[in-house]
């Protein structure tokens, strides 16, 4: 080890590198840094999980309409620990969306997105958008009935955009309907294009965090310098906390994979649409919102919330960060969460028959209940 170090020292400015690494490791974190601050690290942990398990899945996966479904079945049933790798990838995607949302909610309510950290927020919001694109493109790859028809409905919706809609739809599909061309496109975007995009966004996000440090709870422009009593060293204090969370989280994730394995269902059949096609839970609020408006207006309405999230730091420019001193933005945040959850629940129950307290109910297209005769 010593010989390697002296070999490197003859070729690289080791004192400067050492100093940089030491400064990063010992960087103090604000006194209020808590367990709530581990959501972002958990999202990073899950990104690493997605990359590693994704590479392993690519070893056996075959991106053709004849073999995609069979190869995923082969991974799940025949390959040693294939069920685990596929399960970790499938559950990892859902959990990554959850962790990013929790991280964003924590950042929103603690006012950490405010000046000078607007761009950190924007990079984070774009990371969530790219993660959802990962989910959308990855969902088609098993080539089963659910994935085929969810992709059909999702791509058809883009056709309603005026002027460019039909062209965009054709470009996404690689033709007139979901086919081999669509599978190839989604596969390339999922395994080549998006990993570079998310890598770049995460790099920018982390660089900004390291340069600007974590936000304190003081008003904008009145932040305390990072020294003195109460400040927590990044290493080992916070790193240990994160390692503890990672361990528990990995155990929980493996438990989920065992208790609720990723399903495969039936192979895609372009001539038969199964009943009750629904998107994954994170698209349910948009799916339901689109039902209440005509196609074109619905598209515009559904684009408003993500756009507001993206530019929120430039709209809420009040100096207060503390939860209790920002009643308006906190009320807006809570209302948005309630609305999203409400629409998600309506989307989930719509066009379903459910029995509540022994009474059978039918929920229509709009999620309105009526008693079953």
């Amino acid at each position, binding site marked *: 080890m010593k010989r390697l170090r002296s070999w490197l020292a003859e070729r690289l400015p080791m004192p400067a590198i050492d100093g940089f690494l030491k400064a990063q490791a010992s960087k103090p974190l604000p006194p209020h840094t808590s367990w709530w601050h581990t959501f972002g690290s958990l999202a990073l942990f899950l990104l690493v999980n997605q990359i590693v398990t994704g590479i392993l899945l690519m070893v056996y996966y075959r991106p053709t309409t004849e073999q995609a479904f069979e190869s995923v079945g082969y991974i799940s049933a025949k390959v040693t620990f294939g069920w685990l790798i596929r399960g970790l990838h499938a559950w990892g995607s859902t959990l990554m969306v959850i962790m990013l949302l929790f991280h964003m909610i924590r950042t929103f309510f603690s006012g950490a997105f405010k000046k000078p950290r607007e761009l950190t927020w924007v990079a984070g919001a774009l990371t969530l958008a790219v993660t959802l694109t990962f989910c959308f493109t990855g969902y088609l790859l098993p080539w089963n009935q659910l994935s085929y*028809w969810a992709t*059909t*409905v999702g*791509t*058809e*919706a883009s056709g309603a955009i005026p002027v460019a809609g039909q062209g965009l739809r*054709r*470009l996404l*599909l*690689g*033709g*007139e*309907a979901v*086919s081999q*061309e669509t599978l190839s496109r989604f596969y390339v975007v999922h395994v080549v294009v998006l990993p570079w995009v998310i890598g770049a966004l995460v790099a920018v996000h982390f660089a900004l965090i390291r340069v600007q440090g974590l936000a304190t709870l003081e008003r904008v422009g009145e932040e305390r310098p990072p020294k003195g009593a109460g400040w927590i060293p990044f290493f080992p204090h916070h790193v240990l906390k994160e390692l503890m969370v990672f361990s528990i989280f990995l155990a929980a994730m493996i438990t989920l994979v065992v208790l609720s394995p990723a399903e495969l269902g039936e192979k895609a059949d*372009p*001539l*038969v*649409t*199964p*009943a*009750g*096609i629904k998107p994954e839970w994170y698209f349910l609020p948009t799916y339901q919102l689109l*039902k209440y408006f*005509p*196609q074109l207006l619905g598209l515009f309405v559904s684009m408003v919330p993500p756009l507001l999230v993206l530019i929120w730091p430039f709209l809420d420019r009040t100096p207060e960060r503390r939860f209790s001193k920002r009643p308006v933005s906190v009320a807006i945040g809570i209302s948005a969460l309630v609305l999203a959850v409400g629409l998600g629940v309506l989307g989930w129950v719509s*066009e379903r028959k459910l029995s509540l307290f022994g009474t059978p109910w039918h929920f*229509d*297209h709009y999620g309105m209940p009526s008693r079953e005769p």
Partner: protein
Amino acid sequence: MNPELPRRTVLDFALRAGFALVAGGMAVPGALYLWPASRQGPGEGPVPAGPADTLTPGSARMVNARGRPVLVLAKPDGGFRAFSAICTHLGCVVKWDDATKTILCPCHAGVFGSDGKVQSGPPPRPLPEYDVIRAGNELKVKV
């Protein structure tokens, strides 16, 4: 006046313009490469749609027309009609409902009549209709 300055400006402009031209020139084939090369689906000639005598009046049959679903209906008064079985709302495949004599979309509860027109639900347009040809007992659909 510095005689070097305009020359530098011109060179600078030429370099930038050259770069933009090369980048643009490469981007055009790149973008066109991504554009789907050929339209899928309909080829030449009508598609076989099965025997006519097994399609009783008021019933329907799904036909695979070169990978695209087509619904062939036998009218109660004789004769046949054929519609694209792709819902005009979001592309799901519709089904014939024998009990109500309507065409139903399983995705968002769209309902079409036996004439292909929208009766209820979100579909914005009727189902496109195709001509049906009868040659003896053989039905064919012009897609």
